[in-house]
Structure formats: structure tokens, C-alpha cells
């Protein structure tokens, strides 16, 4: 889940908050306290009644109906004109695109034993393109990164992954940028799009993977489409956001000069929002890479397949090696696109010395690249990566050693931590949520929604609660909710500690950031195996996994927020004799309240996106329902319902926290 990681500053500027109502004389903490007290009292009275619990193998009528519906689609696949003339055509086009790119860089086409462009050519192109759109530093990074794939012994797998990622990103952008522009220009379209985007990003992929292969068959097309569904929303959202944020006066100036709608779009809006749009593209690429392991479940070739296969025999080292390649690819693509986004400013600043050399150098670079590509097309030594990937072997055994050490030496400590948090925080909270009557929990959620986010958020919450009951997995939903909230609290604690540290020191930021990037793109299952050894198959393991994935985002957002606090204010506080602790707690944190709320929002959403992964390691509840629905036909309907429940929880929290963020920054 890579929802728009918007800079806190932008969020603050987004929508003016509703003016504070006069009625809010009673403080908000008081109201929250009152709600909680009422809840506890009623819980004590009504415990265990109307909890809507449903055993793991039980189904509701809705679940059965979905099963039947799913079967009926499958049964007439070969006669249905929708399949024959619509889905099949889409599949053909996308399949051809994927196959074309694969034949270029990863799979041998026809009679040739190797792809059209060998490793030397690919490395040269990567370096040249990075340099042309970015700068020489990212070019160097790209060359090093791509060579590293070869040294790891994963050249072909990496290229398979790259080919799929490129096709998915290409298809995603083809739709996402026009849709984003439209959503940016039209408020109405934006309102229609938003729920769809929420759905695409929070619905667990496991739910629609099987139907996708029914529609688009097994192969490149399905893998690409699954990736597109998940990866397109960030670009749509961020493009819309960027178009919306181009200053009104500029647009008006263009209008008054007689620019047509088309002209003002092409010459004013798009160029002025270019930088932000590139950030959206960047997020789309990251999201596409996050799908690599899941796509491997429907036979997508590449690094994901290595990860999955290695983990069948719990071979952490090999899985880590492949996971590392994914991380390296993500970091290279991230830095290159970021550099591309900021290139113009960068180039303007260094106008005098390098700029005049740029064009001839670009020409020369193109010639050299062409030669290298030709070589890699013609000669075997430049086509097949030399060596047998011994470095990969070393990485794998180092990872194994580290894992074993941790398992041998830390498990006592980790078990204590687990038991403290489970008994002290998780179990009581979960009992409160699952053993209260459903209407009580629903009412509490709506009331909290109103208090935090206002009436509109309260209405959304009420709708979500109603639909949650309708899915038939209310009780599982509450179990998941408990773990999710506990995980989010821990994420926020970590986020504040590290975010403040990073925000106050650029050096710390630079040191920590690559680790954060790695934590976000490393396929979770790689680190889940050692976690399972340390914490067992428990809800706490799922919480730890969610923290690893979600904490980096909150840290980054909070660090940005801290940095945005004006220097002068901090200096004034320091000269007034404040201690560092006082500066942090009285100045920097309160002044970055907007960032903190946004971080909570993103932290929650990211934690929710790990619910399914959590289901694989002992979290049970909704995550397990989804996984089981993917594996057993009879549970398909329940899995889909559980997926919807996750979406509903996500939408509910998103609306409440966003409304709260708007208030906080007002």
C-alpha cells in the first residue's frame, strides 16, 4: 500500500478546515474519556452478547452466494462473448507487450539462445538513461546496481522482474496520467475516483489473483494486470494533487492571454506539475516492485519466484539474496526517478560549466551505448553474465549465519517482549473489541469518528460499520482491528523517536534512510522466517512484520515535518534557555502536528496492508480468511468478504485521520 506519500506541507495546504464550532466547549480529551468510560461500563454488563462471531470454517449466505457466482463465471468462460471479444483482446495486447520486453532483455526469443540485448547492453542503457534524465551520480549507481545483479548470480531473474515491472509501469502510466489529470481538473470525477482508488490499494491481492487468471489466463498478462491494479493509484492521486496545486493565478494569467483549455493544460498545468507527477511515477514503480513475490504465485518469472521457492524449504539465505536484488532494483529506480524529477533545477544551477558540454556528451554517450548494445547482441561474453554468482552465495551464507545467531541468542529476550505486549496490551484490548456487542463497538467507533474528524467522518464511519456487519466477518474484523491499532501505536512510538532524531540531524537521516528503503521493499517473507523463529506463530509476529513495513513511512514523514519547523523558532526557543528535551516536546513536535497526523494516517494504512501477510504467520482473523480463501475453493466467498472488510477498515481510518489532520493544521 503506497498511498500518496505527500509532504506534510502539502497536506496542510490542501483543504481549509471547517471553522471550529462554538459548541466544542468541552475539551476533546474529556469527550474521548467519556466515550471510553461508557464503553467499559457497558462492556462489563453485556460481555459476550451479540458478538457476531463466526468460526474459521463457517460461512454465511453471502459467502456461499459469492462462491456460486464465481463458479458460474468460470463455467462459461469459453462461450461468453465478454471473454471472447473483450478480455481476450486485452490479454493479447498486454501479453505481446510483455513478451516483447522479455525478448529484449530477459528471455531468449525463438532460435536465439540468449535475449536480444545482453548484460553489457542493459547495463550501458541503464547507465546512459540514468545520466540523461538524472545526473552522473545516479548513473553510476545504476551501473553498479545492475552489475551487482549479475554478481549475485541473478541476472536473468532480475531482468525478468525488470521486464515485468517496466511493462506494468508503462501500462499503469498510460491510464494513470490521463485519469490523474482529469481528476485534477474535475472535482466531481475526483470524488468518483477516490473510492475506486482506495479499493485498488487496500483490497488484498490474494482476493483477486485467482479471478484474474480466469479472465486473463496464466502468464505475463495476468501478472501485469495484477501489478497495474495495485501500482496505478499513486500516480493517479499524485497527478491530480499536482494539477490541483498549480497556482490559480498562473492559470488565470494564461487564460487572460487567450490560451485555450488545451493550451493551458499542455503549456501551463502539465509542465508546472511535472516534478510532483514524477514523484507519482516513482511511487508507482515502488508499488510495482512490491508485487513481485505475489505475482510469482501465478507463474510470473523473476526474483519473486526465487524468494517463494527458497522459502518452501525455509532457505532464508537464498531468499534474502533474491530479496536484496529487489531492494537494489528499487533503490536504483527510486533514485533515478527522483533525480529525473529534480533535474531541471539542478541543471539550472550548474548552468555555466557542464551545460554547454551536455549535448555533445549526450551524443557521444549514445554512440558508446549503441556500440555496447551491439556487442551484447553479437558476442556471448557480453550477452551472458560471466562468473557463477559466487557473491550471491556469500550473501546467502552470511544471511544464514546472522539468522542463526539471532535465533540462538535472542529468543529468550524476544519471548519476554512478546508476552509483555500480548498480555498487557493486545489481549485486553482484543477482548474488549471482540466480546462487546457489535452495536456497542460500532457506536463507539462512530462517536470517536465524530470527535476526531467531525460529523462527515462520523457518517462515513457509520456506513463502514454497517457494511462491516454485512460482510459477516465482524468478529474477525475486530480481532484484526485490535492487532492493527496496537501495531500502529508501536509504529508511531518508533516513528516519533527516529523521525525526531532524523529531522534534527541530516547525518542521521542519511545513514538511516537506505535501511528504511530496504525495509519497505524487501519482500516480507524473507524476514518473516527469522521472526517466526524468534516470536513463534503468533499475533505478535504479525505485528512486528507490520512495524517493519510501516515504521519507515512514519519516520520519513515525521522527519520531514520536524525539518519544516522554521529554524528561527527553534533558535528563539534555544536562546530563551530551553533544553533540547523542551525544544523537542514544546516546539518541534507541536509545530509539526500536521505531519504527525499524516504519519498516523499512513502508518495505519500501511499496517492494514500487512494484514494478509500477518495471516500467514499466526495473526488469524481477516488475514487468515483471505489466505484460506485463496487456497480453498469453498472459502473463496469468505476470503472476498474478509478482503472487503479490510478495505472498509482502511477507508474508515483514512477518512477519520484525514479529517483530523485537516483540523489539526487549521
Amino acid at each position, binding site marked *: 500500500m503506497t498511498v500518496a506519500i505527500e509532504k506534510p506541507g502539502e497536506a496542510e495546504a490542501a483543504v481549509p478546515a471547517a471553522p471550529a464550532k462554538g459548541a466544542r466547549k468541552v475539551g476533546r480529551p474529556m469527550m474521548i474519556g467519556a466515550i471510553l468510560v461508557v464503553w467499559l461500563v457497558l462492556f462489563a454488563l453485556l460481555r459476550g452478547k451479540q458478538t457476531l462471531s463466526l*468460526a*474459521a*470454517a463457517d460461512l454465511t449466505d453471502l459467502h456461499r452466494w459469492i462462491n456460486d457466482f464465481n*463458479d458460474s463465471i*468460470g*463455467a462459461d*468462460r469459453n462461450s461468453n462473448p465478454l471473454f471472447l471479444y473483450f478480455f481476450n483482446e486485452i490479454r493479447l495486447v498486454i501479453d505481446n507487450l510483455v513478451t516483447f520486453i522479455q525478448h529484449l532483455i530477459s528471455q531468449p526469443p525463438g*532460435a536465439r*539462445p540468449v535475449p536480444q540485448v*545482453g548484460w553489457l547492453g542493459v547495463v550501458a542503457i541503464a547507465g546512459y538513461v540514468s545520466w540523461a534524465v538524472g545526473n552522473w551520480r545516479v548513473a553510476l549507481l545504476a551501473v553498479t546496481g545492475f552489475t551487482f545483479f549479475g554478481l549475485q548470480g541473478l541476472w536473468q531473474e532480475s531482468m525478468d522482474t525488470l521486464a515485468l515491472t517496466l511493462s506494468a509501469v508503462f501500462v499503469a502510466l498510460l491510464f494513470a496520467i490521463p485519469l490523474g489529470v482529469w481528476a485534477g481538473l474535475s472535482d466531481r470525477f475526483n470524488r468518483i475516483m477516490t473510492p475506486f482508488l482506495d479499493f485498488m490499494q487496500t483490497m488484498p491481492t490474494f482476493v483477486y*489473483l*485467482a479471478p484474474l*487468471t*480466469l479472465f486473463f489466463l*496464466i502468464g505475463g498478462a495476468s501478472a501485469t494486470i495484477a501489478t497495474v491494479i495495485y501500482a496505478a493509484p499513486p500516480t493517479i492521486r499524485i497527478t491530480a494533487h499536482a494539477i490541483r496545486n498549480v497556482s490559480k493565478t498562473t492559470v488565470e494569467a494564461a487564460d487572460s492571454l487567450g490560451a485555450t483549455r488545451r493550451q493551458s493544460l499542455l503549456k501551463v498545468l502539465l509542465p508546472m506539475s511535472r516534478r510532483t507527477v514524477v514523484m507519482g511515477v516513482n511511487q508507482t514503480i515502488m508499488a510495482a516492485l512490491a508485487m513481485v513475490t505475489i505475482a*510469482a*504465485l*501465478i*507463474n510470473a518469472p523473476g526474483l519473486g519466484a526465487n524468494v*517463494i*521457492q527458497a522459502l*518452501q*524449504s*525455509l532457505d532464508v539465505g*537464498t531468499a534474502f539474496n533474491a530479496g536484496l536484488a529487489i531492494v537494489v532494483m528499487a533503490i536504483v529506480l527510486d533514485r533515478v526517478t527522483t533525480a529525473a524529477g529534480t533535474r531541471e533545477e539542478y541543471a539550472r544551477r550548474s548552468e555555466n560549466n557542464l551545460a554547454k*558540454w551536455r549535448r*555533445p*556528451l549526450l*551524443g*557521444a554517450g549514445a*554512440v*558508446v551505448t549503441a*556500440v555496447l548494445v551491439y*556487442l551484447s547482441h*553479437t*558476442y*556471448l*561474453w557480453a550477452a551472458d553474465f560471466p562468473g557463477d554468482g559466487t557473491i550471491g552465495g556469500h550473501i546467502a551464507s552470511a544471511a544464514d549465519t546472522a539468522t542463526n545467531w539471532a535465533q540462538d541468542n535472542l*529468543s529468550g529476550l524476544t519471548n519476554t517482549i512478546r*508476552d509483555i505486549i*500480548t498480555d498487557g496490551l493486545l489481549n485486553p484490548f482484543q477482548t474488549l473489541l471482540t466480546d462487546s456487542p457489535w452495536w456497542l463497538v460500532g457506536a463507539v467507533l462512530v462517536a470517536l469518528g465524530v470527535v476526531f474528524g467531525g460529523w462527515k467522518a462520523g457518517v462515513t464511519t457509520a456506513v463502514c460499520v454497517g457494511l462491516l456487519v454485512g460482510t459477516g466477518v465482524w468478529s474477525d474484523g475486530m480481532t484484526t482491528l485490535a492487532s492493527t491499532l496496537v501495531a500502529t501505536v508501536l509504529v508511531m512510538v518508533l516513528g516519533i523517536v527516529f523521525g525526531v532524531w532524523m529531522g534534527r540531524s541530516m547525518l542521521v537521516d542519511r545513514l538511516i534512510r537506505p535501511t528504511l528503503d530496504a525495509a519497505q521493499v524487501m519482500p516480507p517473507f524473507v524476514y*518473516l522466517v527469522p521472526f*517466526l*523463529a524468534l516470536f*513463534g*506463530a*503468533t499475533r505478535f509476529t504479525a505485528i512486528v512484520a507490520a512495524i517493519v513495513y510501516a515504521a519507515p513511512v512514519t519516520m520519513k514523514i515525521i522527519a520531514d515535518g520536524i525539518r519544516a519547523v522554521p529554524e528561527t523558532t527553534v533558535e528563539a526557543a534555544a536562546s530563551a534557555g530551553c533544553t533540547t528535551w523542551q525544544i523537542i516536546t514544546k516546539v518541534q513536535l507541536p509545530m509539526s502536528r500536521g505531519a504527525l497526523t499524516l504519519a498516523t494516517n499512513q502508518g495505519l494504512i500501511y499496517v492494514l496492508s500487512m494484514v494478509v501477510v500477518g*495471516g*500467514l*504467520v*499466526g*495473526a*488469524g482473523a481477516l*488475514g*487468515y480468511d483471505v*489466505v484460506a480463501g*485463496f*487456497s*480453498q*475453493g469453498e472459502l473463496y466467498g469468505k476470503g472476498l468478504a474478509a478482503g472487503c472488510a479490510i478495505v472498509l477498515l482502511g477507508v474508515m481510518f483514512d477518512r477519520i485521520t484525514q479529517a483530523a489532520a485537516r483540523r489539526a493544521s487549521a
Partner: protein
Amino acid sequence: MARHWRAGAAGLAVLGLTLTACGGAKVGDSSSGSKSTGSSGKCGTFNLAVNPWVGYEADAAVVAYVAEHRLGCKVDKKNLKEEIAWQGFGTGEVDAVLENWGHDDLKKKYITQQKTAAEAGETGNKGIIGWYVPPWLAKAHPDILQWKNLNKYASKFKTSESGGKGQLLDGDPSYVTNDAALVKNLKLDFKVVYAGSETALIQAFRTAEKNKQWVIGYFYEPQWFLSEVPLKKVTLPEYTSGCDAVAEKVACDYPVYDLDKIVSSKFAESGSPAYKLVKNFNWTNEDQNTVAKYIAQDKLSDEAAAKKWVDANKVKVDAWLN
């Protein structure tokens, strides 16, 4: 203009250097390329589903190896979950599934109703499902292997997840389990906790054996992990035909599954030699465990593991081909 000349000259110099520096084999030279011996005229492409567990991987490795090297097929292995593999029968993308565990619902849907799939006989493997404990525990408390004694030890199996009862660790979600009903109907003081994946189960047993922890959970054989840690099966009330007819009332052990092979109807009628190979393919749990061990513990590639076993078992392999 001078700039352009310089750049051009630099480019040419690099070009010249690289061209003179390189020689070596060209792509497509006959010496480098061709690998398979005979052309695959008769067999063509054989689409083999590979479901995600090591035992299956062992089956697929051996069948693919024989199909490629003895029959000259072009084998396209597809990594798929069971449901999706079965779906592939209808769309013509999967020819064979080599190790099917029961799945009566899928059989009904694809064999009886859609008629896109057909059975192709047993693999010879016996699938056993049940409750297992780590070997140290079976040794220290031998009576634990009888279900009647489980309540005696229930408190030992308590964890942070089991809410005061003993924990019964369930849950690779791929298989049907009756465990919740079993616990209830056998009046055991246990709670079923869903681990959620095979990885989680294996790791739990591995840690339990190493640290002498109390773990009881759902497991199955043939499974490569049993050659690393030979888990012991707990005896449940004996299975009798029909005792598992009503899911909520199950109070007996799981049946022994005769694992079988499923092929697409088209493939069965194609007359491909690969179909004959699939139909004749038959081996024992021991055979599969051997190959699975090569893959999972000795870390051989699929191809190498298959070759090692095939070379040592010529007679069996020849029997599949006749």
C-alpha cells in the same frame, strides 16, 4: 563546432577500442548454442503445473527431467497454487497436476461438471494428515502419542495465543482441517490457533525440537522436513469410512489420502508421450522424500536432484516409459 568534433572523436576511439578488444564466441554459433539432443517433434510442449511445496517440486523435477531427456519434450513448468492450476485445465494452459491431495470440491467442479479435467491414476504416495509432536516430547512423555492423554498435558501447551487452554497449532490454509471440530467433539482442553502457512508450521516445530518446547500441531507426510526432524504422530480415534461425513461432528482421524494425478482432458486425448509418462508415473513416499531432501537440504537444483535420482533408479524410470 570544435566541441562536436572532439566528442565524435572520443566516441570513435571508444568504438575502435572495444571492437578490437573483443573477439570470442558469437551468439548463435553452433558450438555454443544447441543443448538438447533430439528435436521435440512428437512430444511438443508439456505444460506442467508446479504447486508450492517441496514434495511436489520433487515430483515435477523428476517427471520434467524424464520428459525432457528421454522423450524430447519441451517442458514448461508453471509455478501455481492448486486452485489456479486446476483452473488452467479449462483454459488449456496446464496439462498435468502431479500430486493432488483429495480436493473433492475441485474434482466435482472440473471433472464432473466442466469436464475439462480427468484423473490419471495414483502417484503411489500416501498422504497422511494428523497431529504431530516433536521427537523429544514423544521420547520424554511417550503416552502423549495417545489422544486420550492430551488433556493431561494441556496446560503445558499454553501460549500467548491460546487463551488459557493448550495450543493446537493448525494451519497451512491449503488443506481442509477438521481440527476445530475434533477438539470440540473429543472434549479436549485445547484451542486451535491458525499459524497460516507451512513455513510457520515448520519453523514452529524446528524451534520446538531445538529448545525443547511443547508444541503440538497439524502436519502431514510425505514432507521433506520429516527427514530433518522426525515428528511423531499422535493417534486419534481410528478413521472409518464416513466418520467425517458431517464436518461439525467429526471425531475421528483423517483418512489416508491416495495422492493422485490430474490431467486436462485435452492432454489425455492428445496421444502425447508425456501423457503416458504422467499416467505411468508412480513412486513411493521414500522416493519422493529422497528427491525432496536433495532439493531442500542438499540444495541441489531441481534438474540436478532429478538426474541424481533417475540415474540411480533406471528400472523404475524405464517402467514409466513402457
